[in-house]
């Protein structure tokens, strides 16, 4: 199996999602693949956007995929 799991970005864009309380949540939507797995879709809130958040999520997903490959 592919242990490197390179990331392949499919799309990135802003999205607005209505919330139950009537407010609108503005998010940045990332769609990507990790190796042959995916697509993965992650949303990061735009308010006080943390540019490193998506990187942490990608690493967490990659860690889990590697663990699954070892099983």
């Amino acid at each position, binding site marked *: 199996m592919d242990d490197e799991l390179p990331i392949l970005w499919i799309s990135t864009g802003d999205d607005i999602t209505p919330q139950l309380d009537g407010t609108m949540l503005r998010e940045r939507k990332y769609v990507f693949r990790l190796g042959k*797995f995916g*697509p*993965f*879709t992650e949303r990061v809130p735009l308010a006080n956007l943390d540019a490193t958040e998506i990187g942490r*999520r990608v690493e967490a997903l990659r860690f889990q*995929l590697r663990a699954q490959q070892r099983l």
Partner: protein
Amino acid sequence: MTPFDPWALLAMLNAFYPIVSVANLQRARQERPEYFAGGRLGGSKGEKLFLPDGRVWDLIYAAGGPASAMRWTIQDVTDAAPGAPDPFPLEDGPLAPLDETIVFPMPGGGSFVSLVAGELEAFGDSDGMLARAAVDATEGAGRVNIEPAFSRLVGPAHEHHHAMRQALDNDDPAEELEAAGLTRDTIDATITEYDEEPPDDLNEPDPGDPPRDDSDDDGPPGKERPQ
């Protein structure tokens, strides 16, 4: 619609929802719907994902069991849906299930009656013999013997008993109580004064000689104290 990748879904669940529960599965379905590819959650405990194409995935291992035993999983159980043949059928055990179509025949109406009649037949004409004996004792020759014996033995006993009851009823217990001195209204501690002489005082016991004082003793006579 986002294509469904079971391994991506499993990685997402393990990465962002470490606590395995149906509630967290529903939360993941709401927060990250793209991973579920438009499927809906269901099953007996809500642990299964039903995809629009008909596939069914089990997402929680040992759902409904202890929390420590549950973990995220991804297992295609489409063929194990209700109505599908069991891939691991159990062997036939030693006990066969009851066939509900079997109806046990009801016992015949005359069976019990015939049994009882057969048992009674063995006694023969015992009822008639007992009835005849009773008639003989009360109306026949037995009656001639019973009445004189009753008047000779039981009659005097009845008369004696009645006489005793009559005598007891006529007796006035007040005379007996007065004769015994039990007619007072109050009860004394003693019926009569204590008139016995007290016993003589006993002499004090002799305590004996006091113990010898050894401080001035030179030891037993005839022996010298070692220096």
